[in-house]
């Protein structure tokens, strides 16, 4: 073997480090809190044909989107309308390659070296508002995509270096927070430029041939390792059923069907038989489902290695069109993330018993997003507070479940600090703590869910939210017990309480409280095997109550 191997390794590492530089640019310059705090975005580098070379993810929901959105771009800009140097594409079409929901905007930049297209830099980020019926562009009661905001069907926001001012003006005229939206757009374009500049430098240093060879080897490497890991998993056919509890209109539950076939060559995930696409916005696009399948595959094969095109060569998705997990136009889709989590939950629940040392019991299974909009009581400016909430994770074969973590759909997401939230949105936070609503008992205890309670100080405000997992608790594994539920309540000034799970635009008045509740994760292993000192420690720390311990841990009752 020649020393070129090291050159190749170095080019591959450089690509990853370029991805990191792009990622950092967006985090530092974007204007939407959901980007810079929730890190609800991803960046990617593909080769000239759209094959993924490197990506940086803040969340896992875009795992498959980076390469698929570039592939779709190539489809749409063929020989009759080719991409040119200086072009930048903007796209948010949900149903085709790389699509999720309209709020996630992809920016795609072809990279040219001496006139030849050698790469793409791409990113996709969740802008707080993209127009449509409701602030935050999310509604649980939309029935058509048109209610969910502006649609950019793969158009040039820059053409040969020139900004498309017509599109900018349209954008400004159709969103609620134009300043922040434009800030996010420029942040996305800048990140791609940063990546493109570094890729050109890399090619100048090592030459195009070495660069291309390194890219090929990198993908081959991704493929080799993931295949090796796949072959350690027992072959077989595994079937399971899950559900979407609600379509936003109170109908449901709707079944999700899954058959996983594992062989030495492939892991095939077949969702045939899942319910047809729903009337409300709890639908998932094929790209979203592809991401769920790839993420599940990655978690049991190569969780810590960088992902590239090769990593996913041996995982296949089968699903007919127009189902709840492969929706098409004009299905509403803004709450796709709840369906995404239902899909990944079903995948992991099916795989868990096959590789029990690699996967935990069920976690709280919802992004638990709420949107609150209103007029800031001090600045009189309009605000949209969009946030996800952390909750309890399932226990696993090695440790208790985590407390205070965001869902599987997240990653490097950050919560919104009370101190910045109160300034920005004019609410006042009263409680941010673990609860002990029970559940998750096992040799390893599921992580506690959480309360977040805040008081509205605006004259009036509107609450939208979608918390699935309100009627089906988190599941236990290997005789571990199930956990608890997600839901939220509005506590009126007169003390009356209203409980919600999927709802749009509940009117709130000054002094009303909103209390968000996330579930406790499932337990792992038989509760009889939990050591006494751990139960006592949980009691001392208030993670479980005395009554819960006596009822669910026989050792305590004896002692």
């Amino acid at each position, binding site marked *: 073997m020649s*020393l070129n*191997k*090291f050159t190749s*390794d*170095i080019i591959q590492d450089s690509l990853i*480090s370029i991805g990191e*530089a792009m990622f*950092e*640019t967006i985090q530092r310059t*974007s*204007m939407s809190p959901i980007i*810079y705090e929730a890190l609800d975005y991803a960046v990617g580098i593909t080769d000239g044909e759209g094959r993924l070379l490197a990506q940086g*993810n803040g969340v896992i929901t875009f795992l498959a989107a980076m390469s698929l959105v570039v592939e779709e771009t190539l489809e749409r800009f063929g020989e009759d309308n080719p991409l040119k140097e200086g072009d930048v594409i903007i796209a948010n079409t949900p149903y085709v390659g790389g699509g999720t929901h309209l709020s996630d905007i992809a920016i795609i930049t072809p990279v040219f070296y001496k006139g030849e297209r050698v790469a793409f830099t791409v990113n996709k980020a969740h802008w707080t508002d993209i127009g449509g019926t409701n602030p935050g562009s999310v509604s649980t009661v939309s029935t058509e995509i048109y209610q969910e905001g502006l649609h950019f069907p793969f158009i040039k926001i820059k053409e040969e270096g020139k900004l498309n001012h017509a599109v900018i003006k349209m954008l400004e005229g159709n969103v609620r927070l134009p*300043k*922040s939206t434009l*800030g996010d757009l*420029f*942040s996305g374009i800048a990140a791609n*430029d*940063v990546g493109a500049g570094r890729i050109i430098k890399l090619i100048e*240093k090592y030459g195009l041939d070495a660069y291309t060879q390194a890219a090929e080897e990198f993908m081959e*490497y991704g493929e080799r390792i993931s295949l090796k890991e796949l072959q350690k998993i027992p072959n077989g056919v595994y079937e399971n059923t899950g559900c979407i509890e609600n379509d936003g209109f109170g109908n449901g539950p709707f079944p999700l069907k899954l058959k996983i076939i594992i062989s030495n060559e492939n892991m095939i995930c077949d969702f045939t038989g899942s319910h047809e696409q729903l009337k409300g916005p709890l639908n998932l696009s094929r790209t979203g489902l592809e991401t769920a399948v790839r*993420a599940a595959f990655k*978690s049991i094969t*190569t*969780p*810590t*290695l960088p992902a590239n095109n090769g990593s996913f060569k041996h995982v296949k998705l089968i699903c007919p069109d127009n189902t709840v997990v492969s929706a098409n136009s004009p299905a509403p889709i803004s709450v796709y993330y709840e369906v995404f989590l239902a899909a990944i939950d079903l995948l992991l629940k099916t795989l868990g018993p096959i590789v029990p040392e*690699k*996967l935990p019991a069920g*976690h709280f299974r919802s992004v638990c997003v709420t949107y609150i909009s209103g007029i800031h009581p*001090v600045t009189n400016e309009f605000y949209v507070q969009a946030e996800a909430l*952390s909750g309890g*994770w399932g226990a696993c*074969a*090695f440790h208790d479940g*985590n407390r*205070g*973590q*965001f869902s599987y759909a*997240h*990653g*490097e*997401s*950050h*919560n919104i*600090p*009370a*101190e*910045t939230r*109160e*300034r920005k949105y004019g609410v*006042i*936070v009263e*409680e*941010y*703590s*673990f609860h002990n609503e029970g559940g998750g008992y096992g040799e390893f205890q599921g992580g506690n869910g959480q309360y977040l309670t805040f008081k509205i100080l605006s004259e009036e405000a509107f609450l939208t939210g979608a918390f699935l997992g309100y009627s089906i608790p988190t599941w236990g594994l290997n005789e571990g017990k199930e956990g608890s539920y997600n839901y939220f309540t509005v506590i009126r000034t007169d003390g009356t309480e209203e409980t919600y799970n999927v709802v749009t635009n509940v009117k709130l008045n000054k002094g009303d409280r909103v209390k968000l509740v996330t579930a406790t994760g499932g337990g792992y292993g038989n509760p009889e095997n939990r050591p006494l000192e751990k139960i006592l420690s949980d009691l001392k*720390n*208030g993670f479980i109550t005395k009554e819960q311990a006596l009822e669910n841990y026989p050792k305590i009752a004896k002692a």
Partner: protein
Amino acid sequence: MRVATDIGGTFTDLVFFEYDKKNKEVTNVKVSKSSTTPGEYEKGILNTIKKIDLDLNTIEFFAHGTTVVINAITERKGAKTALITTEGFRDVLEIARGTRPDLYNFNFKKEAPFVARYLRHEVKERINYLGEIITPLDTRNVDEMVKYFISENVESIAICLLHAYKNPIHEKQLGELIKQNYPNIEVITSHEVSREWREYERTSSTVLSAYVKPIATKYLNNLTDNLRKLGYKNNLYIMQSNGGITTVEDVKANPITLIESGPASGMLGAVVLGRTIGKENLIVLDIGGTTAKCTLIENGTPKIVTTYNIEKTKTQAGFPILTPVIDIVEIGNGGGSIAWLDDGGKMRVGPKSAGANPGPSSYGKGGINFTTTDANVVCNRIHKDYFLGGELIPDFKSIEKAARPLCKELDMTIEEVARGVIRVANSNMVNALKSVSVNKGYDPRDFTLVVIGGGGPMHGAYLAEELQIPEVIIPLNAGVFSAFGMLMSDLRRDYIRTDVMDLNADNFSTLKNVFQEMKDEAVEAYRRDLYEKEDVAFEYYLDLRYDGQEHSVKLKLTDLSNLQMDFIEKAFNDLHKKRYAFSLTDTKIEIVNYHLVAEVIVNKPVIAKVIAKGKNVEDALISIENVDFDVYGIHKSNFYDREKLEPEMTIQGPAIVVEPSTSTVVPPKHQFIIDEYANIIISKIK
């Protein structure tokens, strides 16, 4: 005479300067090294003093850098700590930010917090973001709470209340109450640690400072007593993470400021060196046994950040600490870093290190792994008679054995593997160097690379070439550079305060008032150390952002008396564009943080020029041997003794310059000169 000591992972260094009272030029430098004595670090220092029979009666200035704080944290050996928060917020410490960098590992395990839940208690009180009291502080349950803590053997209490960065009144009341009634327990409040917003970060910082407070206090008291017994009469100065020194009393109040004490002083040494030789734009790289650290210095000023995070990795969120730290990027890539192949057959170097024991395989002490140092030995870049300061002969049998699995797996000779290891290690370091330069909008071509630490001089020329940095400086005494930096350091305190407002001319008087309040605080703090108001010099910075952004960019204000809106606006727009490739010129600018630097310039020696005695280059020649320069090929190369080289000499590569603590590699097509301060400066021949 001035003395500085620096405690490292393996060795405790002492550097001793004598200097001419009149022109302040250094006339004599002595170095003493002794093993670090974990657990009782002050012993190691005393050993270095005894080793060279130093009479402390004659010492006017004693400075000290220590790892006692960071070690207590990483080894989880701090005090049992309790936390008091605003009602409803005791779990903030454990929820943290909910982050999971390990995206695809669903068996992820979140690190346990430093205070268990049963020791996290709450008080009824509330202040809003405007600093107004919404609910007055209710102290009725405090007595019971503290008694419970004591019954649980708590030694230290952290207090962090919401919006205390804006209005610390409740924290002050609560802190005073507990201190008065329970003088034996350590108490620290969040506003004493940081006046920045974000409750988790501030709580974490306060908890960590409380966690190390008893151990740091005990250590500093012991050290002060021991030095006094040995005859030292003046103040003991401690190196902080912000690149300045301060008094022991100041540090004891908030010991978390020592978190990066050691690395900061090395970076500061480079600043002083740069000023001396007229180079103010530097990239500094310090390669030790386990890690490489780098920072960027612009216009003679290191960047200070307060977003420091310990134990942050690609899989863990780590623990944030809001304290002023020189902006250092650290990677697990040092001389002892182990080369290995991952599951896909890709060569990796680090972050696992062979450490000092057993050390690299070439030490022959049972190290079975092939490391970067071993690769340099195979390429013959380290003279075998000078290996490890001449204390050891490299064990080639052991090296070969360590390399064998790599050779077999890769189907390569040991020489090829060695070149590969150095290439991969260099690439790791290049990426770290880019993250402090290119990624932040700086062009490395405008900088000079300063390499320090045992490993720096071996890699410097290659890294500079890759980044197109024109010159590499290997300073004199590169091996004890941290201690050197401390001797050259001034007293420094950083005050940072979140006070969000629009940046506009109407707010200039408020702006000046905020800075004035901070200045008063600084002057008062220095007064306690017996410095006068007139001794204190100030620098003013603002953390600014466009309205709607979350992250800010630090801008230095040149003059507070003559603020001009258009000038500041333009400076910020330019800075933003430089760092992030765009500016939003018609968007409102917001002030997030005020940052005041208050320095007292102390009497310091100056680095003296070395006088050339007209020696010949040939006199410094040790031997001529084949050295493998990777892409430049294998060449017969001159090995020189650094001590015998003197100013005005210019020597062409290929060459290796040898000194006890390191080797400087000068590849073909490069040359080096010895400057008038006896630094080595390498450049590429055009």
